[in-house]
Every structure is written in C-alpha cells, then in structure tokens.
C-alpha cells in the first residue's frame, strides 16, 4: 500500500477541503498551540546516535554549534554595543576614519582574521578530515554486504552472500494519510518488511537505483547516501544497539517521495542468523512454485496482492492510472493485445514486455529483476482480467521463466 493519491479530485471538493481546513486550523490554534507549546516533546538536536559515525557527527555538530554561537554572540555584541553607544539621538559625534590607521588598529583588523583562519582550517578542519576518512572507509574489515536499491517509491534490500532479496514499502494505510482515520504512532515511518541487520557488525552498504536518484537516510546512523541509477555508491554502518531505526528517502524522486520510508531492525547476531535462515527457506519455497502449473484463481489472487504492492501507486486501485504521466490499464491497448506471439516469444511493446522490461524514460520500471516468476505471471494475469479487461487468458510462471 504505497499509494497516497486522492482520487476524484475536483474543484468542488478542493473548496470543501479548504473550508474544512480553515475550521480545523482555528480549532487547532485554540486546542493545540497554546497548551501544546508547553507540553510538546521538542527535538532540538540530532536523534540519539547508534553508530560510530553518528556519534562522531553529533560530536562535531555540537562542537561547531558552540563555535558559531560564540562567534555570533561576540560579533553582534560588539555591533549592539555600538548601536547603543554611538547614536545620534544621544549626541554621539561621528568619527571620520575609513580604515585602519595605526599599527594597533591593524592588529585589531588582523586578529579576527587569524582567529577565523584557525577556526576554519584547524579547529573545524582537522576533526572534519578525520571524520571523512572514517566515513569513507567502507572496505576495511566489513563483515557483510547489504545492497540497497531505490525505486519509485520503495526500497529493495539484497543480501548477496545469503542470496535473498525483498522489497520494502510503506505500510501506513491510505486512510491515515487522507485523514479518514487516526494516525498511528509511526505514521509514514513504517514498512511492510523492514530490513534486518546484526548489531556489532560492520555492514558495507552498496546503493543503486533503477529509475531516478533516491537518497537512503537513517538519521540515527549518521548516514545519508544517494542511490544513483546505473552506478554503485557505498557507505557503512556498525549498529551498536539493538532497536528499530527509522528514516526516509531524502532526495526528491517524484510524487511519492514523501512515502518511501526506511525501517531497520537491528538485532543480536544469533537472531539475525535465524531470520536469515527463515528468509532463505521462504525464498526456496517461493521458487519451487514456479515449476508447477497454477490455476487461474491462484494467479488472480496472487496477482492482486502483487498489484496492490507494486503497481497501485501509479496505476491506481481502479486501474484508471493518473494520465498523462501514469496511463490507465483499464481498457489499455497494451494490456488488451495478444499475450505472446505465435512462437510463444515476447512481442515488443506488448504487455509482458512492458512489465518485464519497463519503458525507458518513464516511471514504468523493469520488473524482471525485482519480481519472481510467480509474481510476474500472477500480476500480468491479474491485469489482463481486472478493471473491466476480459482477456480470459493467463500466463504461467514456467513460461515467464522460459522467457527470461
């Protein structure tokens, strides 16, 4: 459930919404702002750090904040002193100097300059360089690798050594987003399948993207790195404390940029290994399904599930899409064309081709690498027999496997 689009958007309900909003605003002002100011739990700094980098970053941040606060206070204290003492209204006579004239005055000019030089390149510069070198040290003594792939608008996590991968999408119900029901504690920061990492292990994180640039950010890790299509970027974390850590995509990546959270479960290593085994078993079970023949009811049921997770953000629950950017599937020429050619091969720009290989230059991504044979077969079958499309045909997971 990643879609947050409000259907049936018309001028009428826009006006209605504005009126509703104004009412709420006034109520809120009275109910919440006044007592709220006193009670709210404000955050004035970074959240609690749980990795060495985050601790280092917080330390640097606090130190810099102190330095610039001192600079600010000293400089503007001098200015405010002058504004009080050197006023025309109290009869102060203006001086006429326009530059340093004596050795002492030159000293006054050069001392702040020297202090700033020292602050920039020594006081701030040296810890910064040290931190950069630590931050970029992704290769030494890494215990494991996690590959993170950003895609509109979800994250795929892959554990290359264990051979498992899965997609993680927003789990907040749409009714919460449209204010139809009360918002949960982790509103917008909850996913269907969090990524699990062991504590006390150095995890090398490789990042890439399948479409546009995304940024993977967990504030408590002190890590923020762009996921760039066609390139690998890397960073690392060493989580010191078990817990659930939440973050978000930080680079504008299209309409649901605000709705692709990152949730990391950090657990002790034995628990992590048990989880890994369980995932492997599940993946194996799922792969086995590709070889048997599926009934059309089974494919439709599985396809609905995949559709609601992967496709609904753009093509909508109704299959009407959001044209022109996101075309409708209902009555679509692509969906309602023959499935494969007479030799059982993919027809270019056909339904199967679109789903497997995407459409370059648009948000339609290639699902061949992110979905399994079963999922691909199911979702294609589902789309051809839903939203008023009545092709009556289906494609088997085994056929998809052969087409790869």
């Amino acid at each position: 459930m990643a879609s947050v689009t409000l259907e049936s958007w018309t001028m009428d309900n826009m006006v209605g919404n504005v009126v509703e909003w104004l009412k709420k605003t006034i109520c809120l002002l009275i109910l919440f702002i006044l007592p709220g100011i006193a009670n709210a739990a404000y955050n004035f700094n970074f959240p609690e750090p749980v990795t060495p980098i985050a601790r280092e970053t917080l330390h640097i941040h606090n130190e810099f904040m102190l330095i610039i606060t001192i600079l600010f206070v000293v400089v503007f204290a001098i200015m405010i002193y002058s504004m009080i003492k050197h006023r025309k209204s109290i009869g102060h006579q203006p001086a006429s100097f326009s530059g340093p004239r004596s050795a002492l005055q030159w000293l006054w000019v050069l001392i702040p300059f020297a202090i700033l030089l020292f602050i920039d390149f020594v006081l701030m510069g040296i810890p910064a360089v040290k931190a950069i070198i630590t931050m970029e040290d992704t290769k030494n003594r890494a215990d494991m690798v996690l590959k993170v792939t950003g895609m509109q608008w979800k994250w795929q996590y892959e554990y290359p050594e264990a051979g498992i991968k899965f997609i993680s999408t927003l789990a907040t119900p749409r009714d919460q987003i449209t204010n139809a029901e009360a918002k949960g504690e982790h509103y917008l920061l909850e996913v269907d399948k969090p990524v699990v990492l062991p504590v006390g292990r150095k995890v090398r994180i490789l990042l890439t993207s399948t479409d546009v640039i995304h940024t993977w950010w967990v504030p408590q890790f002190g890590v923020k790195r762009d996921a760039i299509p066609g390139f690998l970027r890397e960073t690392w974390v060493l989580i010191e404390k078990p817990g659930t850590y939440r973050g978000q995509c930080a680079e504008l990546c299209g309409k649901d940029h605000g709705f692709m959270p990152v949730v990391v479960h950090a657990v002790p290593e034995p628990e992590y290994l048990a989880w890994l085994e369980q995932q492997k078993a599940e993946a194996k079970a799922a792969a086995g399904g590709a070889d048997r023949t599926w009934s059309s009811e089974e494919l439709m049921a599985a396809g609905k599930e995949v559709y609601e997770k992967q496709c609904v953000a753009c093509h909508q629950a109704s299959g009407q899409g959001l044209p022109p950017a996101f075309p409708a599937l209902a009555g679509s020429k692509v969906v309602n064309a023959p499935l494969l050619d007479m030799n059982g091969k993919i027809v270019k720009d056909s339904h199967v081709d679109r789903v497997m290989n995407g459409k370059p230059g648009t948000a339609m991504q290639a699902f061949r690498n992110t979905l399994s044979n079963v999922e691909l077969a199911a979702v294609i079958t589902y789309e051809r027999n839903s939203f008023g499309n009545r092709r009556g045909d289906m494609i088997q997971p085994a056929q998809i496997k052969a087409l790869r």
Partner: protein
Amino acid sequence: MSSVTTTHPVEQHAEYHPGGLLRWLTTTNHKDIGTMYMTFALIMFFVGGIMILAVRAELFQPGLQLMKPEFFNQLIGVHALVMIFAALMPAATGFANWMIPLMIGAPDMALPRLNNWGFWLLPPAAFLLTLPFSLALLGFGDGAIATGWTFYAPLSVQGGWGVDFAILAVHILGISSIMGSINIIVTIFNMRAPGMTMMKLPLFAWGWLITAFLLIATLPVLAGAVTMLLTDRHFGTHFFDAAGGGDPILFQHLFWFFGHPEVYILLLPVWGLMPHVLSTFSRKPVYGYKAQVYSFIAIGILSVVVWAHHFFTAGMPIPALIYFMFSTMAISLPLAVLFFCWIATMWKGAMSFETPMLFAVGFIVLFGIAGLTGLILADVAADAQYHHSYFVVAHFHYALFAGGIMGVMTGVYYWLPKWTGHMYNETLGKLHFWLTVISFNLTFIPQFFLGLAGMPRRIPDYALQFAEFNAISTIGAFILGLSQLLFAWNVWACVRGGKKAESRSWEGAEGLEWELPSPPPHHTWEIQPQIK
C-alpha cells in the same frame, strides 16, 4: 570617496514620449526600465509567495489536506524559480538600471535598446514558467515542473511537459540576464564620469560588476545543461543516462557550477548596497573600501570553484571531498572582511535608525546566521546529516530571504525618496520591518530544528514527531507573507504622494545620486560631473 567639483544645472527637456502602454514598451530610458524591473519583481515576489503559502498550508498538519503530492512538488520548484529568476534577479537589475548611471555620473546605460529588450524578455519567460499550471486546470498536460528548481536528471527526463516549459523559460531568463550584464559591464567600464577611477567607483557598482561577470561566466553553463536535458528528453541523447554511457551526476556538476555562483549573483548587489546605507545612517565614511572591493573579487573567484559542496551525499573521492570542504570554508574569510567592514562603518558613527538602517542591521544579523550555518554545512561529515533536510532549507532562506530580499528592501526604502520624490511612511516602514524580522524567524528557526530531528525537505506529508515545529513555521510564514502587503502598500502610497523629498533625502547621504533633484528629471548627467 568621490566629490563633485563643478555642478551643472540640470536641464529639463520637454521631449516627446509616446503615451500609455507604448511608452513603456518602447522606452530606452534607464529610469523607466529600472521602474519596470522593480515593478515586475514586486509582482512576481507575491506570485512566488502565494505558491509557498499554499505549501506551508499543506504542511501545517500531518496528512494530506489541500493538494496532491504531484501538485505540491510543482509548487515548491516553481516557487524557487520564480523567487530567484523572476523576483530577486530582476529587483537587483532594477536597482542597477536606476542607480548605476546616477551614481557614476552617466547619462544612461551604454546600450539602451538592449536594455529594453532585456526587460521585455522577462514577462514572457515568467508566463512560460507558470503557464503549465493553467493548462493543467484546463485539462492539458500534468502541470508545471515537479522536480524542484534543481532540474535533477533523471527525474527531469521522466517529467511531463512542465520541464520543457521551464527549460525554455530558463533560456529566455538567461538571455535577458546576460544582456543586462553586458550592459552593466560596458556602462561601468566606459561611462564613468571623468575622474572617477575604478577605485572611486561606488561599492554598489562594484558589487554589480562582479555579479555581471559571474552571470556571463556561469549562465551559459546552465543553458548548456538544460539544453542537454532537452535533447535527452526528446532527441535520444544519453548525457544523463547511465544505460547510454551518460552520468546523472554530470547534471549536478553542471547545474551547481552555475547554481553556487548564483547565490553570490543574488547577494553581491546587496553587499554593494549595504555600505552606502550603513555609511549614510552612521554619518561616517565607508570603512575599508578597498578591502571590500578585493573581498567582492575574491568571493567572485571562489564562488566558481566550490560547487560540489551541494551534493556531498552523491559520493565522491576523499580528496574531492576535502578540497570542496576547504575551498568552501575559505569563502568565510572574505565574507568575514565584509562583516568587519560593515560593523566598523557603524563603529563610532552617529547612528539613527530609519527603516533602511533597520533593514540593514536586520540583514547583517540574519545574514550572519546564514553565513555561520553555511560554514558548518561545508563540513562533509556533519553535512551528511544536514543535507537534503530542513536544516538546509532554513539555511538558504536566511541567505536568500534575509540576505537577498531584506537587502533589496533596504535598497528600496533607501532610494524610494530619490525615485519618487516623496518620503514613504516611516511608521509603516518600521512596522513592516519588525513584522518581517519576527515572523521570518518564527518561520525558519523551527525549520533548523526540524532538519536536525531528521525531516527531509520537499515532502508533502511528514511523521508526527515533526508536527509542532511545522505548525509554528506555517503560522510564521503566513504572518511573513501578509506583512509584505504593508510593504507593497507603503511603496504604492509613496509613489502616489507624501512628504516632499529633498535632493539629499538622508542627512548623511554621500554620492552623485544625491546631487540630483528628487525625483531626478527624465534625463540626467547629460553633462558629466567632474570627480576630484
């Protein structure tokens, strides 16, 4: 600095103008064109302001209340493009047109017809930029550019026709800015009054001179980048597509090679103006004239070699990170010289605090916050937390609203008596100042905390922990927006009438512009003054 040895009687010309709209369409007079630039900037300031108030209204509470995320994305990007290219830059060019000829004793700008053309390119460009909104309402297309003002590929390759409109608009705005810059450079180099050497040039003209060179150096790079984007979108090239051998990060390099100097393009005219105002209301000469000139030049040069600090999180080699960090920090040195000179100009003066002086002091303090937060943003390690977050949003609004817009307001209040021949309403001006400063801080201080707590920028909806600060920020933004109506009213009232302004509208004002009557006649300095 400079003084006039012989004052010539200013001749009044009874000359022919076409009437009505035709006068403004065909004018080649620097004052008329300056007025048009300023008026256009004021209108677009409100257009961009309304857009961002809609955004702030949406962000008042968690959840989606007023708009779809797609529309939200369009508003934030067009807000930035309008404010930067259609409000701040034209306002600065308006100042240049009005004041540079008056201040350097030139009869007009060197290239008056180019000047007219440069202005009249702006309205069509602004129209193009905002047209997709109206087309979408009528059911054509999917609205304006939704990539933020940064056009990052591949999101912009994927986008709807709003991107094409924006590319075309940026091209036209760029041509206009380059023509304006050429005009200013030619005017300053060739048309100074006899005896006005470069080191007697008013600092405002110096600031603009550096801006003009930066525009000519960097705008073609932006034009190239967006043209490459256009060919990627429509003509099958792959500059920014890895699958075709391109690189999305190339776009960021090209964009910020323009984008970082752009910050100084917006600020240098304001830095040039500050010493005039501070010196006037301190009744004391400008401190450190030469130091300020050299700082302008140093900042101009440094500004084109620091661009990659805008995308540290994109990943780059360690030597590059360290280089871009230290070169960015180095900008703090010439900037500190400017701060020193501003405060030293006030030191031991006889200060009075009319509205322009209030805005100047407000500018120094708030722009100080922008500079200091900029210094820590340069730090690569800490930047990993600040970047792409509301901390950055707050930082650059301190630079561009408190630095840019409040700087422009300083200049407007300072020179309004000269332009209109009337004094504006001082009480209203002071009220405008205090409302602006308080509500500005109410808007943006919470955003620093939001960023530190981990709220990414450019999101239409947010987690519950960010609710209080967003609510406060929205309230601040609405007060800030509404108080600008006072400004518009005050300017309008001052144009229409008011207390008669003297030639030297301010007691401590120095410079050639104050030797002329207020308002100055249509043609001035036809006989150039002699500078000792």
